[in-house]
């Protein structure tokens, strides 16, 4: 199932999200062709129950699709749309046509990616979310950058949709996209090192280059594992995603993003910072993912506090209980440590429960 889904996603992107198309959409061309292909393939409804026309998949199932989108630096919020549609359907709301980005709430504003197209913004406000049309938004040019557009609406009057922890859910989707972009960066970097010749031999023949690419490889493996870990749900569907696992994954991915981009650019040399090479599309994807929904600093603090206020003194016990590759229910050794801490109820902060 995983393989089949990953293959069909890759084929779709290879055909309809070539770097030429990606660059055109980033420059303002209509993404209608690509989004209708995605819509027809059913990917945007992947997390919806089959009863309402979805595919009924869980987060771990759609991970390969989000990674494939990352590999192609697809400038559409595919993960966000999957999440937003699941939230809307769960609330009994109609799903609007088009792609939906998750907004990061600021005072009277929303931050959304500047390099991705979207038709709607689902914006968390207090314990609910508002669905706002992109067409009605004004971009605050002074406050915006390529890292994010700051949007305002004349009025945020919209129906309040009950939503869970959209920021954690968004962070999960970003980690998935980053893991995919990192895989592609590794492949491109290895190929470049083999093709590019200096001093009469491929630069891949130099130990200094080999060792750097080995470090890059290690980080790619670690982030892929982090993305898999973050996709382990504590129950059914997107609402059961576990914020603790997502926090760890976002920290690891954010850290790796810096090191990976640094090594990939170093190996590519000056060519890597030209427009002709795709590397910058992918490293920008990493920058975006790192910044959205909390960077590694934010999530490290959150995770450190959760550990210190939790029920166990031991790092390994905390990891086993809250950050293991299986759901906590299957871990009989979890509740064995004695402690005087009282703050944790022992319940997992899932995306549904945290807000």
């Amino acid at each position, binding site marked *: 199932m995983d393989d089949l889904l990953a293959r069909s996603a890759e084929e779709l992107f290879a055909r309809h999200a070539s770097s030429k198309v990606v660059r055109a959409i980033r420059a303002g061309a209509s993404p209608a062709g690509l989004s209708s292909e995605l819509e027809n393939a059913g990917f945007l409804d992947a997390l919806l129950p089959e009863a309402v026309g979805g595919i009924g998949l869980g987060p771990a199932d759609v991970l390969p699709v989000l990674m494939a989108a990352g590999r192609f630096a697809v400038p559409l919020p595919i993960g966000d749309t999957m999440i937003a549609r699941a939230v809307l359907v769960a609330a009994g709301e109609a799903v609007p046509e088009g792609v939906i980005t998750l907004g990061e709430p600021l005072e009277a504003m929303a931050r959304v990616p500047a390099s991705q197209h979207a038709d709607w913004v689902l914006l968390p406000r207090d314990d609910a979310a508002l669905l706002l049309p992109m067409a009605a938004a004004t971009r605050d040019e002074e406050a915006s950058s390529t890292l994010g557009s700051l949007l305002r609406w004349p009025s945020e009057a919209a129906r309040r949709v009950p939503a869970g922890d959209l920021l954690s859910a968004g962070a999960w989707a970003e980690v998935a996209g980053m893991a995919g972009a990192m895989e592609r960066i590794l492949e491109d970097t*290895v190929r470049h090192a083999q093709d590019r010749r200096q001093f009469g031999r491929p630069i891949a023949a130099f130990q200094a280059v*080999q060792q750097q690419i080995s470090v890059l490889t290690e980080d790619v493996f670690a982030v892929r594992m982090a993305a898999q870990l973050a996709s382990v749900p504590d129950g059914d569907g997107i609402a059961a995603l576990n914020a603790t696992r997502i926090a760890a994954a976002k*920290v690891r991915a954010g850290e790796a993003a810096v090191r990976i981009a640094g090594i990939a650019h170093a190996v590519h040399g000056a060519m890597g910072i030209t427009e002709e090479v795709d590397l910058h599309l992918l490293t920008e994807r990493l920058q975006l993912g790192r910044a959205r929904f909390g960077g590694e600093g934010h999530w490290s603090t959150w995770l450190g506090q959760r550990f210190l206020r939790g029920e166990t003194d031991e790092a390994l016990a905390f990891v086993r209980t809250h950050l293991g590759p299986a759901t906590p229910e299957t871990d009989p050794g979890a509740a064995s440590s004695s402690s005087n801490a009282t703050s944790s109820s022992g319940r997992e902060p899932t995306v549904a429960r945290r807000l």
Partner: protein
Amino acid sequence: MIGALPLATIPPEDEALRPEIRAFLRETVGAIPPERRARSWMGFDPGFSQKLAERGWLGLTFPKEYGGTGRGPFARYVLVEELLAAGAPVSAHWIADRQSGPLILRFGTEEQRRFYLPRICRAEAFFCIGMSEPNTGSDLASVTTRAVREGDGWRLNGSKIWTTNAQHSHYMIALVRTSGTPQDRHKGLSQVIVDLRAPGVQVNPIRDLAGDAHFSEVVFQDVLLPGGALVGEEGSGWMQVNAELAFERSGPERVLSSAVLLDEWARWLRGAGAMEAAETLLGRLVAHLAVLRAMSIAVTGRLVEGGSPVVEAALVKDLGTEFEQAVPTMVANALAKPGVVAPGPLMRTLAYTAAMAPSFSLRGGTREILRGMIARGMGLR
């Protein structure tokens, strides 16, 4: 390119071992001060090994017919991660249980299995491994210690160095040259079991920078080995050594060497009240630990399926030791605040761990060797 690692989980029947192990450790290890427990798998205590043996926790993966418990790699994973996280003194039996026993089981004769394995399981046979020599470090194929055929057996001359626990062990499995010259590289190497009480064996302990003598120089002068000393095929030593190293590169011991320090620091933060910078650092370390553990479990999953994830294991070891070294480096920085007085046991644990940390990425294959293997796996060499 190296294949992706799918997520793996520890089976419930192996997880079920954990509460008993934890209860045992609370009783036996809980009162040992942290600066002793920080020695992790370098802490030597034959009495403790004996207690594990009584519970059937030595040779956990060996077949029952050889005195083992017949459990799988995941059962051992659970046992080992709890032992290491607690800082249990596992050094006496560590190498026999982890490397020598499995090697004898895999490549040894039936006679060797029947002799050594039950003794390992009873904590009566401790092993050390003779690989490095005074002029042979990362370039392992350049060993010059030589075993020459004599009658049914062998005459051994040469020396090994940096041999962990040689002064406490009963046996050494040594990588030696049985034919050819060092120029023949991987060809002509064999593994032999040396009884360290044999005439002609001299063990000279070497004190380390923390004042312990965990490793030694071992000199062989006309040591006579019986024919049954050879492990596996004559001339297959290189292949056997690599198989042995590969399986031991991704275990919890490549992630948890600084676990006692991390826990001591977190415990102190909990009581003393943490500043945000400390919380951030702690969270970062926990995130790394979580991902490393998932990777280590995934490699174990590959082993259980009968795979040979040699490069993946190298990758986990390099990342794991980077983490193990980051813990003392960063905790030292966090504690180096004017006016902050941390408890003595925490500071002594830090001092020990920080001093030994450079060895974490040397033992079992240096960082550069591992990265060379990964580069080869990626098709770069």
